[in-house]
């Protein structure tokens, strides 16, 4: 029974090996020119310190929430697309209903002005 998991074990080992191998490779052969920027924890990210209470406009969250909502809902299209031929016309009808419901939400958000920045 455990034999079923053999490929998994191989992938696990392979992944560990490749990770370790690449890091070792880089540190062995790469050039080393340290500076202030290069010594900071994140090389190309945001500045990691500053005032903790920075104000971000609430609209940012609103749009983010809307994005996540619609994103997740739309993901349902993917499994549907896989089996669309097998489930035929009824499946199509149900998906149309689903999209229409989604569209109601879209319309609502739009009309309420949730998509405008101001």
């Amino acid at each position, binding site marked *: 029974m455990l034999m079923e998991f053999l490929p998994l074990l191989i992938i696990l080992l392979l992944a560990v090996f490749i990770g370790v191998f690449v890091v070792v490779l880089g540190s062995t052969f790469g050039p080393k020119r340290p500076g202030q920027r290069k010594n900071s924890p994140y090389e190309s990210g945001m500045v990691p310190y500053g005032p903790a209470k920075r104000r971000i406009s609430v609209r940012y969250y609103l749009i983010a929430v809307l994005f996540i909502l619609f994103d997740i809902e739309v993901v349902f299209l993917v499994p549907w697309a896989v089996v669309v031929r097998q489930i035929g016309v*009824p499946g199509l009808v149900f998906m149309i209903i689903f999209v229409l*419901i989604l569209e*109601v939400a879209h319309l609502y958000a739009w009309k309420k002005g949730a998509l405008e920045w101001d």
Partner: protein
Amino acid sequence: MTRMIDIYSILPVMIVAGWALLLLVVDLWIPRHRKGITALLAAIGLAIALGFVLASSGNTILGFNQMVVLDGFSSFMQVLFLVSGMVAVALAYDYIQRMNINHGEFYVLMMFSIAGMMLMSQAYNLLMVFLALELLSIPLYVLTGFARTRLESEEASLKYFLLGAFASGFVLYGTALIFSATGQLDFVGIAAVVTAGSANSVLFLIGAALLLVGFGFKIAAVPFQMWTPDVYQGAPTPVTAFMSVAVKAAGFAALMRVFLVLFPSLSEHLTPILWVMAALTMIVGNIVALAQNNIKRMLAYSAIAHAGYILMAFVAFGNGEVVGNTVAATLFYLVAYGLTSFGAWALVIVIEREYGKGILLDDLAGIGKHYPWLGVAMLVFMLSFAGVPLTMGFWGKFYLFRTAVQAGYIGLAIIGLLTSVASAYYYLRVVVYMFMKPGEPKLQINPWVSLVIGVAALAVLLLSLIPWTILELASRAVLLLQ
């Protein structure tokens, strides 16, 4: 494959949900000062659904591969939910204008919540139970915070949401455990596995206990009741009224459906837990209500206490001989409690108009003298709450106590009786303040709210005289349960 009969079995739910969606869109073009139209449309939608519920009642259908069931029990509960919804709309119309929160979404959210409750009464699959639970809960979190300019409303909403999510987690976890114990989600399948004896009994039992916690939260049973007073106090009063009636009923619907179908075999282990829960709920609800000055909080604790009485009859859920009586008594009590509760909350709405928020006992002074009809109506509600003989509340308690005694839980019945006597104190205190303290209240009474009060009072009086009509209906709802 979807059959027409599947659609038919949940047609009322679909109507309510679909109508709510349409209303959401239509409402976008209804100007702010015309939100009465939305209210009216919402009521019409609920009425149509009610018509379909009544038309399809009496059938028994397992639809969507046994995911949902249509039976007398679900029809009875759905009538209760839909009527509650209409009453809540009538109560809210004037109130949300006055509080300057008259957005059409109020009614839409309420309809979604009702759709969830209706689905809850029909669910025959643990996933459906969970789905319905969320569908009924999430709009309520929003509704609780609907008066978003008021701090206490927001606070209540947040608390309700956090704790509700916590409780939902237990329901989901319980569902998962039951699934792992039986490999099934739908009731028929689980019951079959349990009967065959091939379920993992420990996981199954723990799963059942976790479901009990989740439902206990919804019905506000001790020790899962802590949210109730804060939420009831903070939420807009029509929402509170709606919650105290419909949500509680939905919680009991889920509890009864799940426990009576799935867990009779566990009664040996679960009954002691229910016994303690029922006793604690009755004691804590009634005793803490004694110490309240704020009417909304007082009614909240009273709501807890009444849940305790129903739980008392529910303790015997595994006893096949009395379980029919349990369900009938519970349904009867939900109706009796619902009528009374709506009436009492409607009076709170009337009085709150004047004082803005939070009414204290002192604010009731003089109402009996200056508004005798309101006073008399409140007297009727309070007597019924207290279970004074020959009121509807009395018959409700009578049936519950009878069931408990039949099942042999005499100690519990005695606790119920004693706490019920204690409850007369805080109910009658309301009447005393209304009639015996001098005061100069000035109320403006909205016709819809007074309609609710009048109809509720008349219905309580009438059904006090002929309680067996409702009991008869409730008993018929039981026959099709399992």
